[in-house]
Each structure stands twice: as structure tokens, then as C-alpha cells.
């Protein structure tokens, strides 16, 4: 078995005081294997961004463990935590507000190097210029410009360069292209694919756009109201979703094709409040297949095909083997990345 770079077990995050507690993330477990891109998709309020932040401990998990290369981040603190965190970097949604408008591109990218005293003088300059060039910002012409002088797409490129400065193993991308125009979005997606190959990066790609997530991911995990519904290889999951929610979500995605059949099944209603989530399966209030069992028993993730797991009592794909409960400590959601796909 290829070992996981990042291992998340029963991660929960809750906000607010007792009585008004919002369970943003509830018992989420998954692995990210070195070299793969795991897409984390879901609608607003499903906990995908909170999951990403909890991995970095930008928000503190209330329960569960996060293990990066065998080191438990959730147990680390102080300098040890900060040191481990250099191996994982995060890029955020709004590229303009994630950069200080009054600093120069070069200084922004150099900041992590300065913090950790990784390089100085001539070497520092060489590393920074190389990073800027890699993300498509000409260091000679633009390196000394201020962040405020760049467009959104360019700011996102600078953010990527800054994240790469520490040579991280894992890059957490939180809605990194959703604020960009389509033509610029394509540039950034292609850039991430190129950098991933070049730096041997592993990506956790969090986004709401189903087409974007499929495009960049090897595997995709779907979240609904704080829980993981389904996780599996991108192409399989999109072709044959096993969770009813995934099916509706994909059905609602708009295809830029006038000949595409208009799907009639539209998911009715809106997600319930995370202040008071439904018992059992959290999707049951909107699910056309829900029974009493869904209200009383929380479905656990189980395998329906190799590497394809679903948390549903009545999955749309028939499980390979219905009983697969032995060895319940076994990691969930682990599959080696598809090795067949080379640079294409």
C-alpha cells in the first residue's frame, strides 16, 4: 500500500458556545497520497473550507487527528507545529486581499524565506526570481512592482509563488480560481498542473465548481453539511455517482453546450442549518430515497468499488461486498494515484 502523505481521521470542527454550537465539520476522514490531487467539493456551508483551514490549524479542530508524513499536527505546538507547517502551504480565494497592496512582488515571495532564514543576499534574489518566472511573472519587469499594481490573476500567481517558496509537499488550494475570469482561470489551472509535475506537489483542491474540480483532481471527495458523502476516482465518481447528493449536484451543473440534455431532476429545498443538523444521514431531509433507517442510523463510509467509498444506506452503485466492517481501524479513502496519467 502506498502510504498517505496526509492522513485525516475523524476531524471535527465546531464553532460557537454550547447550545448554539455549529457543527461545521463532523467526523471527516480521508487520506491524501503523495503526488495526487484530491478535490474537495461541496456547496457553501458544507465545511470544505473549514476542513482545509483545520488541516493547517488556522482553526482548531475540536476532535480528530491530522497526520502529515507520520507527524501528528494536531498534537504538535509552538515551534514544532510551525516547522511542520512549512511543508504544507495554503492559497486562498481572494488573490487581491491575500497580498499586502503596499509590498513589492519580490518581497512578498521572499517573506517565507526571510522568516525561516532559508536564504539571503544573492541566493535569496535568485530563488525569488526563479519562483516568479515559474509562475509567469517576469521578475525583471514586474518584480519590483507593488501588489496593488497587479490584476487578480497576477496576484494569484504571486500567491502561488509565495506558497512554493518553502518547497512544500502539500498545497491546499481554497477556491483559488473562483474569483477569476474564465480565460484567466484556465491559465491558473494549467499553471497548477505544471507546477505540480515540476515540484512533485500533492494538492488538496477545495472548490465549489464541479467542472473545475474534475479537471484538476485524481480523486474527488464530496461534502454535505459537514460530512463526507462520497470519495472516489474523479472520472468514476462523475460517471457513476453512488451518493444521491452527488448525483443531484452533478445534475445541477450547467454544461456549456446547447445540445446538452436539460436535466429535469432538480434538488428541491436548501441545506438545513448546521446549528441543528438532521439526525442520522444529514442529507435525508432532501433525499428522495430516504427511509426511517436514514433518520436513526448515521451511514458510515463503505466501499462500492475499489477506492470508491460512499456514506449512504442505499447507494446508487451496488457495493462490491455489503459486509466490509472487519478491521474497522483501516484507513478510509486511500487509493494510489492513477499512475497511467502522464503529462498530457
Amino acid at each position, binding site marked *: 500500500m502506498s502510504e498517505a502523505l496526509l492522513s485525516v481521521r475523524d476531524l471535527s470542527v465546531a464553532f460557537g458556545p454550547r447550545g448554539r454550537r455549529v457543527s461545521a465539520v463532523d467526523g471527516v476522514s480521508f487520506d491524501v497520497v503523495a503526488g495526487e490531487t484530491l478535490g474537495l467539493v461541496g456547496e457553501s456551508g458544507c465545511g470544505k473550507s473549514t476542513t482545509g483551514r483545520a488541516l493547517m490549524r488556522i482553526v482548531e479542530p475540536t476532535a480528530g487527528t491530522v497526520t502529515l508524513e507520520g507527524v501528528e499536527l494536531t498534537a504538535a505546538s509552538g515551534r514544532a507545529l510551525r516547522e511542520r507547517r512549512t511543508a504544507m502551504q495554503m492559497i486562498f480565494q481572494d488573490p487581491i486581499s491575500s497580498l499586502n497592496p503596499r509590498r513589492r512582488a519580490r518581497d512578498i515571495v521572499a517573506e517565507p524565506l526571510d522568516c525561516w532564514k532559508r536564504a539571503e543576499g544573492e541566493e535569496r534574489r535568485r530563488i525569488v526570481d526563479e519562483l516568479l518566472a515559474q509562475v509567469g511573472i517576469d521578475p525583471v519587469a514586474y518584480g519590483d512592482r507593488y501588489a496593488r499594481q497587479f490584476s487578480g490573476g497576477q496576484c494569484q500567481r504571486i500567491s502561488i509563488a509565495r506558497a512554493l517558496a518553502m518547497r512544500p509537499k502539500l498545497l491546499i488550494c481554497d477556491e483559488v480560481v473562483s474569483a477569476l*475570469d474564465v*480565460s484567466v482561470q484556465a491559465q491558473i*489551472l*494549467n499553471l497548477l498542473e505544471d507546477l505540480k509535475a515540476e515540484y512533485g506537489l500533492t494538492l488538496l483542491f477545495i472548490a465549489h465548481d464541479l467542472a473545475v474540480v474534475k479537471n484538476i483532481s485524481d480523486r474527488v471527495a464530496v461534502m454535505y453539511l459537514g460530512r463526507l458523502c462520497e470519495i472516489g476516482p474523479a472520472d468514476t465518481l462523475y460517471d457513476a455517482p453512488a451518493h444521491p447528493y452527488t448525483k443531484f449536484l452533478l445534475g445541477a451543473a450547467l*454544461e*456549456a*453546450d*446547447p445540445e446538452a440534455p436539460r436535466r429535469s431532476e432538480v434538488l428541491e429545498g*436548501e441545506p438545513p442549518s448546521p446549528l441543528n443538523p438532521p439526525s442520522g444521514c444529514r442529507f435525508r431531509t432532501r433525499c428522495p430515497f430516504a427511509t426511517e433507517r436514514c433518520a436513526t442510523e448515521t451511514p458510515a463510509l463503505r466501499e462500492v468499488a475499489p477506492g470508491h467509498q460512499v456514506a449512504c444506506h442505499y447507494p446508487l452503485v451496488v457495493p462490491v461486498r455489503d459486509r466490509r466492517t472487519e478491521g474497522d481501524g483501516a484507513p478510509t479513502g486511500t487509493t494510489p494515484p492513477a499512475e497511467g*496519467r502522464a503529462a498530457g
Partner: protein
Amino acid sequence: MSDETLLRVREVTTTFDTPQGRLTAVDGVSFDLAAHESVGVVGESGSGKTVLSRTIMGLQPRRGVSVTGSVLLNGTEVVGATEEAKRELWGRQVAMVFQDPMTSLNPVVKVGRQIDEVLRVRLGMDRSAARARAIELLEMVGIPAAVTRYGAYPHSLSGGMRQRVVIAIALAGSPQLLLADEPTTGLDVTIQAQILNLLDEVQGRLGMSMILVTHDLGVVATRTTRLVVMYAGRVVETGTTRDVFARHRMPYTRALLESSPKVSNPSHTRLAAIPGRPPNLLDLPTGCAFAPRCAYATDRCTSERPVLEPADEPGHLFACFNPLPLRVGSPS
């Protein structure tokens, strides 16, 4: 074609005076809209699509903006019309659904009263008739427990529900033309599908015409009959939605289509990204505004501005000196 024309837009140019100079946001745009028709206006940020829809509505600040050309709505000229004349149009002839339902509703007024206002001021209904009609409208746009929601404040509603309220307000005066400017941007996909279906349904039921302004080609693909593709304030291609998708001639249209990822493509499909970014409207190139990013650009493109010329199909126009050859078969 012309007998049922509801809206006639001719050579509309909207310019803004900014501290950096004069900015042309919409530049010589012309198109017609028939009754019951829905047209999509597509473009990236800065393409002028929103300014165009506001110009059609006659919504501009009084200072620093100049509009030339003609917008003929059901025989009434909007450009240069007085505020009084425009107020006669708003609500009953034309209504608008804006992008952000959070900011287009008044946060301190109950939603019912915001719908009532249209009915009482524009249609002269009395209080109780307006209330009954407002509840009817809330039901029509699919708001459950409409009677309770009538007395709710916008903050207690979700984004999707707020957008339904905005649509109810727009429909209150039974307008003939509905302008929807990015009506689903910022909403979740499942909610987006609900709102688009709702717009479709009310458009059919009330026999309205609709202009759907969006950056998302997926939104217009199956919901409009014709498309207007804009770039840097100009129309670069227009035609039936089918022709624009399958038989487009302008390289920008293709770039827009091919750079967006598709759910039907396998994962890791390389995207055909176009280099650069949309131009600065204060500093537009002399010729074709897309030329600096275009793979087919020649010297002529940088010196001379292409005008719209007809393609093979009726009603299909494009502005390009080096149009793309038609591909055999229709691309998916």
C-alpha cells in the same frame, strides 16, 4: 423579424469620465430583441455587459456619464428620456434582477413591503390588494410559507430565497422585458439550477422577453435562443445560441468556450488557455481589442478595427478579419 421587435438597440455607446480620462464601457452596440425571446449577453469582467444592461434600463448616474445611440423599448426612446418618463417604463415595461440579492434588497424593510411598494406606487393598488398580490407573487416564485415570509426581513432569508424575492419584485409590475444581470452568480449550483428554472418558467408563463447577462456560458447554453458575445465594450459575435456555440467564427468566442473546464471532459484535460487578460478600457488598442491575445492576429488587426459582418447563417455576425474556418461536425 421586425414586426414583433420589443427592443431595438442601435449604436449605443456609454462613456464614463474618470480621473484618468474618458472610458468607453459600451462601444457602438446594436441588437434587436423580439417579444417572448431570450437573449444572452456574454463576456468577461470589463466587457461592458453590465453597463449595457443598465443603459438599456436607463439607469445611470446623472454626472460623468454620456450615452449616445438609441434604445427603443416598445416604441419609447430610453436614451435621453427624463426621469419621469423612465419611471413610467420601470416596473411595467422593463424590470431588472441584479446580481447580488444581499445588496439589492433593503435590509431594514420587510420583504413584503418591498414588493407592495411596486404594486402601490406603480399600479396604484390599495394596501390590502397589494398584500394579497404580493403573497401571490411570493408563491409564484416558489417561496414556501409565503404569508409568513411576507413579514420577514431579508437577513433571515437564504441567498436563494432573497433572489426569489428580487424576482418577485421585478415581476410585480408584469414587465414585458426582464433584464437579469448575473442572476445566479454567487449562488450554489443546486440553487442556481432552481433560480434559472424559475426564470425560465415565469418567462414562459408571463410571455416576457428576457436578457440574461452572464460570464458563464453554461447559464446561457440551454436557456437562450440568441447570444451576444462582448469583448472590451464591443459586440464581437452574435447569432443563434446554437450557431455561436457550434459555428463561431471569432477567435475570442472559441477561446471563451474552450478555456472553461467541462464536467463531461475526463479529468486532467488540458485547458486551452488564452494568454494575457482583458484590456484596460482606458487604453484600448487601435484595432481589434482582442488582437494582443489572439493567435491569428495580423498587422491589419492591430491597425484597423473590424466591424460586424454576416456569416453564412442568417442573423449570425462576427467582427474579425481572420475568422476561424468552420469545423466539420459540431464540437461538443
